[in-house]
C-alpha cells in the first residue's frame, strides 16, 4: 500500500495512458480517437514532469551567486529541482499540438469527403 502511495505519480500516468490507448484503439468516432491520442501524449508529459518535481526545492538559479559572495555561497544540488525534464516537455507539447493539428485536419478532410466521422460508416463507404 505504501508502495502504491509513494509512487502515485506513476500510477496516474499509467492510468491516463491506458485511458488514451483504449480510446485510440476501441472508439468508433474519429474525434474520440484523436482525444484519446491527446490524453495518451499528455500522460507521457505528466510522467516526465513528475520526475523533475521535488518538494521544497527551488528553480535552478543561483540566487546570490554574483558579485563578491560567489566563493562563499554554498551550492547544494539537492536544493534545486531538475529543470531538464520540464524543458524537454516544452518540445513534446509542441510536437503533440502539431500531431493534434494534423489529425484534426485529416478528420476535417474525411468529413468533407465522406460526410461521416464514424469509423464503421466510413468502412462501409470504402468497401
Amino acid at each position: 500500500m505504501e508502495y502504491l502511495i509513494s509512487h502515485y505519480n506513476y500510477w496516474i500516468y499509467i492510468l491516463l495512458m491506458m485511458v488514451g490507448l483504449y480510446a485510440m484503439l476501441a472508439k468508433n468516432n474519429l474525434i474520440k480517437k484523436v482525444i484519446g491520442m491527446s490524453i495518451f501524449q499528455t500522460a507521457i508529459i505528466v510522467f516526465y514532469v513528475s520526475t523533475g518535481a521535488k518538494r521544497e526545492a527551488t528553480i535552478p538559479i543561483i540566487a546570490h551567486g554574483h558579485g563578491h559572495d560567489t566563493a562563499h555561497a554554498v551550492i547544494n544540488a539537492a536544493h534545486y529541482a531538475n529543470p531538464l525534464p520540464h524543458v524537454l516537455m516544452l518540445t513534446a507539447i509542441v510536437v503533440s499540438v502539431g500531431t493534434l493539428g494534423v489529425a484534426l485536419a485529416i478528420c476535417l478532410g474525411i468529413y468533407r469527403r465522406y460526410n461521416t466521422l464514424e469509423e464503421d460508416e466510413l468502412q462501409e463507404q470504402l468497401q
Partner: protein
Amino acid sequence: MILYKQAPALLVIIPLLSAFAINIGGWFNHRSCFPIALAAMTATLGASLLTIAQVLQTGPISYRLGGWPPPFGIEYVVDHLNSLVLVTIALVSLLAVIFAKLSVEKDLPDKIPQFYTLYVLLVTGLLGMTITGDAFNLYVLLEISALTGYALIALGDNRALPASFNYVILGTIGASFYLLGVGHLYIMTGSLNMGDLFNILPNLYATRAVFVAFLLILCGVWLKMAFFPLHTWLPNAYTYAPSAAGCLVAPLVTKVSVYIMIRLMLSVFSSWYVFDVLALSGAIVWLAVAAILFGSILALAQKDLKKMLTYLIVAEVGYMVGGFWLATVSGITGTILHIVNDALMTFCLFVFAGIVVYQTGGQKLTDLQGLYRKMPVTMTAFTIGALSMIGVPPTAGFFSKWYLILGAIEAGSYHFMAALLISSLVNAILFFKIIEIAYFEPMTDHHGGKVHETVISEAPFSMLLPLLVVAAGLIVIGLYSGTIVTNIIRFSIPAGL
C-alpha cells in the same frame, strides 16, 4: 575547408532552410518551388558525400552543435554506419524530387508549394534522425518526419485520408512509446546523449527499469518500421499516397527506422546486452520469419501493383529485423547492406509504379498489358529492379540476401534461411507474372477491346532519368558490394560477435 568541417550540420540545415525558401517562393510563383527543392537536394547530396569522405579519411566524426561539449549539448555523430545511410537518403531524395516534378504537376496542381515544403521537411527529419547522437533529439526529428509523412500521404486520392488517419494514430503510439522508453533511461542515468548512455548503462543492466525502457523503445521503433504484426498502417498508407510522395516515403521511412533500431541497440544498449543478456533473439527471428512469410503471401494475393509492393516492404522489413537479430557478423552485414539495397530497389519499383500511373492512369496489374512494346526503356529498368528484388546476381539484392543467408547458417537459424528462400521464390513468381502480363498479353482496355495504339508511349525524360540512374545503381552496387562491405560496413559491426 570550412564547408568540409561543417558538412554534418549543413546536411540538416540545407533542407530545413529550403523549406522556408520554397514556401516564400511559392507565394510569388509556383514554378520556383521545384528548382529550389532540386538545388537543396543536390546540395544535401554534396554535403553527404563530403561527410562520408571525411569519415573514410579520419574515422567517426563528432560534431558539437553550438560548440557545447557532448553530455550537455546536442552532438551529431557520424560513423561508417550512418554515413552510408545518409548518402542513401540524400541520393534517393534527389532522384525522387526529379521524378516528382511532372507527377506533382499532374496530381496536385494547386498544392505545389505545400508538397515541396513537406518533402524537404521530411528529408530533414530523416537525415536528422540518422545523424543525431542524442536520444531526445532523435524523438523530435522522428516526429518531424512522421508529421510531414502523414500530411504527404493525406494529399493522395480519396482513400488516402482514412489511411493517413490510421497512420497518425499508430505512428503516434510508436513515437510515444519511444519517448517513454527514453524517459526511463533518463531517470536511470540522468543523460540523453547516446555515447554517455552507452557508458553509464552497463552498471544498470540488471534493473527492471532498463529492461522496460528497452522493450518500450523496441516496440516504438517496430511500430514505425511496420514490423509484423505492427504493420497494419503501412499497406493502405503507401498505396493511396500520391506517386511522388510514395517514391520518397516508401523507400526511406521504414529503412531509416531499421537503422534507428540498429543504432539504438548497438550504441545505446550494447550487443552484449541485447544479444547475450536478454536472449530474445530466437523469438524475434521467429517473428521476422512470420513477417517475411506473411508479407510475401499477401503480396501474392494483390491485384493492385502498388499494394503488392507495399506488402513486399513488410516482408523486406522482416529480412532486416531478422538479419540483425541473428547476431552474427554476416547477418548484421547483410542487414546494413540491405538497408541501402532495399531503399534503391523499393525506389526503383515505386518510380516504375508512378510512371505506370502517370502514363496509363491505372495501377492494377492488368493495366500493365503490352507495356514492353510501349515503354521499352521503363520496362527494362523495372526488370532490373525486379531481378534485384528476387535476388539474381549481379544485382544488389543478391548480395545482401547472400550475407543474410550466410548469417542464418552461422547462427543455425535454418527457419530464417527457409523463409528467405521462400520469399525469393514468391518474388520470382510475382515479378515473372508481371513480366508475362506486360510482355505477352496484348493491350486491351477495360471492356476487352483494343485501345488506340498511340495512347501510351514512353515516359517523359525527367521520370525516366531517376529510374535509369537507380537501375544502373543497383548493378553498380551489386558489383562493388564487396568494396562497400570491406571499407564501410565492416567498421559498423560490434567487436566480439
